[in-house]
């Protein structure tokens, strides 16, 4: 058995590597967006790519998100594989008409004749002290749009693997990058990084018997921390990282909840109309007879994203998660 050296890398570095490898492997892959060229993107995810691949393949576009995505549609129609960067979650909204009316539907409206292999990278979520319009959790909008895949990595290895899979997909993929994990480090094998395929598989990050925390993206580290803290209360929590919101891995999630009998969905997005409602419904439909308690949600409040000095009150933290776990009707169960 050969031992491969694991090196620490940040999620941002893994994303850059994924873009570089995808561009090297396939000349049809083009990167476009605001400040992705000389600057390397405001989060430096496209660092060095313009120099390596030239401005024709790594393009600083005019500052107009509908135009960026709309022209990417035309490029994809002609056989290119555009990877679009939306600078921030809330700056992606001008592109919604193109996204909803064209990107998501083109395969369908042309009976499969015109698939659009576009990857839309969107830095999302809070916790970085961003001022207004820089911290939205916009995943519910994307999830509600048929025709899109919606994925989000929570680890360095997944950042690479899911982005490679997204770019390789013949369907449009909204690739949500948790901003506050950009600088998270992990031991990673950069010699032979792998794509995570197929898109749509969740993974159990921590095995446990007492209850399941169902989460994704920026809330995964919080849930893992909560699971460690829960051991002091005698709870052995399982943590499921969804990785993909569309398609949704009912199988892995339901199998976990059937084992534990209790579930809490955790995300930064608001709870009303947020992903947690759909997930709770799916779990209940599949695991009703295994459930010891209603599926609970720990989410951001249903408020416009707060100013940075107040955001810690909004974001789901360890205590709020543990409080929810405590409400899972332990006295009624085993």
């Amino acid at each position, binding site marked *: 058995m050969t031992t491969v050296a694991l090196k620490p890398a940040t999620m941002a570095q893994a994303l850059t590597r994924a873009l570089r490898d995808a561009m090297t492997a396939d000349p049809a892959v083009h990167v476009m967006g605001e400040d992705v060229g000389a600057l390397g993107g405001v989060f430096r995810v496209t660092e060095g790519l313009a120099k390596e691949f030239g401005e024709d393949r790594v393009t600083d576009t*005019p500052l*107009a998100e509908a135009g960026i995505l709309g022209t*990417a549609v035309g*490029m994809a129609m002609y056989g290119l594989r555009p990877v679009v960067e939306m600078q921030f979650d809330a700056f992606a909204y*001008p592109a919604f008409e193109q996204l909803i009316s064209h990107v998501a539907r083109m395969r*369908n409206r042309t009976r499969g004749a015109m698939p659009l292999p576009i990857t839309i990278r969107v830095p999302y979520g809070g916790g970085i002290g961003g001022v207004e319009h820089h911290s939205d959790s916009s995943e519910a909008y994307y999830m509600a749009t048929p025709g899109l895949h919606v994925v989000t990595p929570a680890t360095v290895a997944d950042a690479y693997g899911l982005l490679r899979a997204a770019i390789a997909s013949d369907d449009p993929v909204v690739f949500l990058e948790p901003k506050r994990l950009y600088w998270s480090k992990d031991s990673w094998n950069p010699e032979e990084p792998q794509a995570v395929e197929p898109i749509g598989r969740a993974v159990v990050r921590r095995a446990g018997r007492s209850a399941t925390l169902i989460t994704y993206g920026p809330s995964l580290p919080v849930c893992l921390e909560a699971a460690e803290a829960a051991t002091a209360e005698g709870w052995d929590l399982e943590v499921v990282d969804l990785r993909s919101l*569309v398609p949704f891995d009912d*199988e892995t999630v339901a199998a976990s909840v059937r084992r534990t009998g209790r579930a809490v969905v955790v995300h930064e997005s608001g709870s009303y109309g947020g992903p947690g409602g759909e997930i709770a419904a799916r779990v209940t439909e599949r695991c009703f007879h295994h459930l010891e308690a209603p599926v609970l949600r720990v989410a951001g409040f249903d408020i416009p994203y707060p100013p940075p000095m107040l955001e810690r009150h909004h974001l789901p933290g360890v205590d709020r998660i543990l409080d929810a776990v405590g409400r899972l009707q332990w006295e009624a169960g085993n």
Partner: protein
Amino acid sequence: MTVMEQRGAYRPTPPPAWRPRTNPAPLLPDARPYRVLGTEAAADVDPALLRRLYAELVRGRRYNTQATALTKQGRLAVYPSSTGQEACEVAAALVLKERDWLFPSYRDTLAAVARGLDPVQALTLLRGDWHTGYDPHEHRIAPLCTPLATQLPHAVGLAHAARLKGDDVVALALVGDGGTSEGDFHEALNFAAVWQSPVVFLVQNNGFAISVPLAKQTAAPSLAHKAVGYGMPGRLVDGNDAAAVHQVLGEAVAHARAGGGPTLVEAVTYRIDAHTNADDATRYRGADEVETWRAHDPIALLEHELTERGLLDEDGVRAARDAAETMAADLRERMNQDPVLDPMDLFAHVYAEPTPQLREQEALLRAELAAEQEGAHR
């Protein structure tokens, strides 16, 4: 050192980085709509082209009246007519080479038909059996686009991609006067000019965005003037003069093909019919106005020119009308047949591979259909 301290040495200067970027003068559009028919320029036009345009206009008008009739017979869900605008529709199709791309809006099925698309396929969206009735790659015609102006950035992106690949491809995108108010119109023109993409934008200014007249849509001197702000040439043309539209679009396409970048063409025309068969135009415009435009009918203008010059006789007129009738009869017959629809197609093309969630819903519909079938046999 403050300005007060260096008094005497300090001289105000212009903004350091400023320089004129583009000389606007060559970009300015024609002072009045460019015309060919009835002017000296008509003598320079190839008679064969004039005859071809005439045959296509007659066929196009008949296509419009036939499609409108099909709405009354319940064979089309809706039809946005291009009656009165046939010169624009036909010229847009004729100036393109086979490898070029056309980006039509929902009112431009005639342009697609004039490019060679089967009228039944062109009308699929409006019949309602599917959203697009043809393979866009086969005909290099993008799907008919309903959300206004959103097809324009697609045309820019496609032309940009073709240029990057070194392919000789021009994209021609169609939009109406109302569409020029949309943000995507602005963004598409801006991207096209910055990238110098081989695109031609044809605005058919037919006077109305459903009921709203142009005066409520823009304060610009003309829609063609909008080109100047983006740094591309604007052209203003009589949209009912088929020879003029053909010439101006042809020049714009040649300019794009030669690497000269995009052009914005405003064709001044008129929507003779209501917005669609479901609209009532008498609520927002007078019959007099429509009559003045009927007197400037694109077919009449061309027929007059051809007849005056001895290029068209009664036999020629009859031949054009007969050909149009044949097309209409065929269209009528085929549209009177019920399309065969498979409800399971609803799930077939949402993703390359249906998600597990869609497979569940697919199974639900299949079961419903089976129950329906069973009920029908009982």
